[in-house]
């Protein structure tokens, strides 16, 4: 693969900024419950790191996240999401009714934990899908794989 933007300056800038971006992403995800933010936004930010690394360092496999990895990540995230939703059936609640989980916490916290799980699932899904979209758009020999898309 021919380098797209490869240069030392960009490389250093990338190295410097990536940890902070990830930190910010995690912050946004974690505080999705009670402040602006959440899984979508956080997942998008997280995906930005992967895409940045791919663009600048020509590393198609940052932290092991190649194409298949992205697919697996997306699927696992969405499975987490649907799984938590389905889990509430076990405790006689409706779908996504995570107030019913028998956790040793106060009622509001239980809802928070449930939606936090959902946010993590969503952010994994969004990250995976966005990376997949990026990969699909930049791949060289075009076999027509289309990415799935998030909820």
């Amino acid at each position, binding site marked *: 693969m021919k380098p797209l933007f490869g240069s030392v300056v960009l490389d250093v800038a990338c190295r410097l900024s990536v940890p902070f971006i990830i930190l910010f992403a995690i912050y946004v995800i974690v505080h999705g419950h*009670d*402040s*602006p933010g959440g899984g*979508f936004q956080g997942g998008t930010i997280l995906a930005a790191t992967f895409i940045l690394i791919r663009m600048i360092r020509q590393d198609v496999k940052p932290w092991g996240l190649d194409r298949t990895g992205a697919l697996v990540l997306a699927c696992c995230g969405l499975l987490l999401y649907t799984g938590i939703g389905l889990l509430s059936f076990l405790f006689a609640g409706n779908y996504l009714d995570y107030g019913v989980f028998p956790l040793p916490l106060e009622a509001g916290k239980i809802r928070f934990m449930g939606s936090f799980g959902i946010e993590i699932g969503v952010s994994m899904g*969004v990250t995976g*899908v966005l990376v997949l*979209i990026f990969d*699909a*758009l930049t791949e060289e020999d*075009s076999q*027509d794989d*289309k*990415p799935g*898309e*998030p*909820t």
Partner: protein
Amino acid sequence: MMSDILGHLNYWLATLLLLIGLHGMLIRPNLVKKLMAMNVMQVAVIMFFISLAVKTGGTAPIELHGDGHTTPHAAAYINPLPHALMLTAIVVGVSTTGVALALLIRIYRYYGTLEEPELLQRMQE
């Protein structure tokens, strides 16, 4: 007349954006420009929804804990629903754009053009 326009400025702006988008999608011969126009059109609807929820001096409907803060009166909250909806609409828009770009890349790789007249000509051959 003037008051109609000024009183509902947000509607008129949204309509204008919508029309710009529609015009681009239907008239522009370049497929990428069609796609951009599509995004403009989606933004028009998003703007429309968000403007429905605008409240001058309102705050985000978030419980802020800790000292020094007083919980504002519920009437001061901005309706969060349109924002949540438009977040979803944005995600939908991004996905659509993603799929559309993938299609465009495939078309470009095969035909070497994204101008519709040329494309039609090459498809005939």
